[in-house]
């Protein structure tokens, strides 16, 4: 749920990075955090286990500057990818404005990608949302892996959803900002179309 404060002239948007465990969701956020200027970012909060696996979520607030006189703030969240954290994943999706699905190019994770994509659809349905109605981009991560599944194969494994796609090596920062810009474009365009009164 986007929050528009006409008094403070602020626009707040919630973006959630979703995908299978160890697919690179937290790595995306860490790269954004590392690259963003200090004045434009808040603290990167990670609610993680002792082995740095995401337990509840990672959270990174980004202050992107002004758009038509409005301060645009993006709140980036990741969900825990591990199967048994299903309840936490569902909670983080509450009020989501845009989604980045981080798919793993490792051939051994094809089933995990498909399962996570299906899980996303179920969890959105729990909030009365249809996956094809929420602005979504897909990031095919770990493209540098030897034996990486061709993009076409990954696309088919997700049922060829027909959303914007980005190839990435998040650990090196490749494709991270392209993905974020892609989802930002979708979310802001979508918001313009559905603002009440329009």
């Amino acid at each position, binding site marked *: 749920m986007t929050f528009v404060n006409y008094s403070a002239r602020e626009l707040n948007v919630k973006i959630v990075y979703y995908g299978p465990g160890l697919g690179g969701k937290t790595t995306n956020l860490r790269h954004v955090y590392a690259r963003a200027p200090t004045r434009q970012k808040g603290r990167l909060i990670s609610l993680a286990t002792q082995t740095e696996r995401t337990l509840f979520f990672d*959270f990174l607030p980004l202050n992107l*500057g002004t*758009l038509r006189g*409005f301060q645009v703030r993006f709140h980036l969240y990741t969900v825990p990818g591990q199967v048994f954290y299903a309840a936490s994943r569902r909670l983080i999706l509450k009020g989501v404005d845009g989604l980045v699905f981080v798919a793993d190019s490792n051939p051994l994770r094809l089933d995990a990608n498909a399962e996570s994509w299906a899980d996303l659809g179920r969890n959105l349905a729990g909030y009365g949302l249809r996956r094809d109605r929420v602005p979504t981009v897909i990031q095919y991560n770990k493209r540098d892996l030897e034996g990486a599944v061709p993009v076409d194969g990954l696309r088919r494994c997700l049922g060829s959803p027909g959303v914007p796609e980005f190839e990435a090596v998040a650990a090196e920062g490749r494709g991270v900002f392209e993905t*974020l810009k892609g989802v930002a474009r979708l979310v802001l365009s979508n918001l313009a179309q559905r603002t009440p*009164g329009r």
Partner: protein
Amino acid sequence: MSLREGVPQLVVFEEEHRDLRQILARIHSHSRARAVLLLDVNGQLVAKWGDTSGLDVTSFCSLAASNIAATASMARLVGEKDFTILFHQGKRDSIHISLIGDRVILAVIFGAEASLGMVRLRVRRAGAEIEAVLRRILSRMRLDDRLDVDPLCDITDQDIDELFRF
């Protein structure tokens, strides 16, 4: 009607924002709290009052909202709809968090000079006032033609690139 019903986003105008701040100011002075924050259930700050110096407000709001969401899930597991009040007691400061109208969260941060009983009393009294303002916001969101002055109309790729200059 539920306050969450039928409105996809929350839009706050100057008048209601001022009213909400006044309510927070009253809680702050009457309960002798350090700071009072109002956020939406997704963790976006709506209004605040008091001393928030040294507090990472954005992170605080995100974690408070997650706290409420996680607790509501636990409530459902034991057959409750939700737990509308959370209280965390620290050595120096304590936090009282309450869910109001299923749409916003009121967080009061207070120290030893305030009492939990007084905070609870003031929060309970303010809850109805905040709900009334929220209902006004929601009805205006359905009617107000100022929303036609949309900051996002005709957004271009160049606009997006400008936002990500780093």
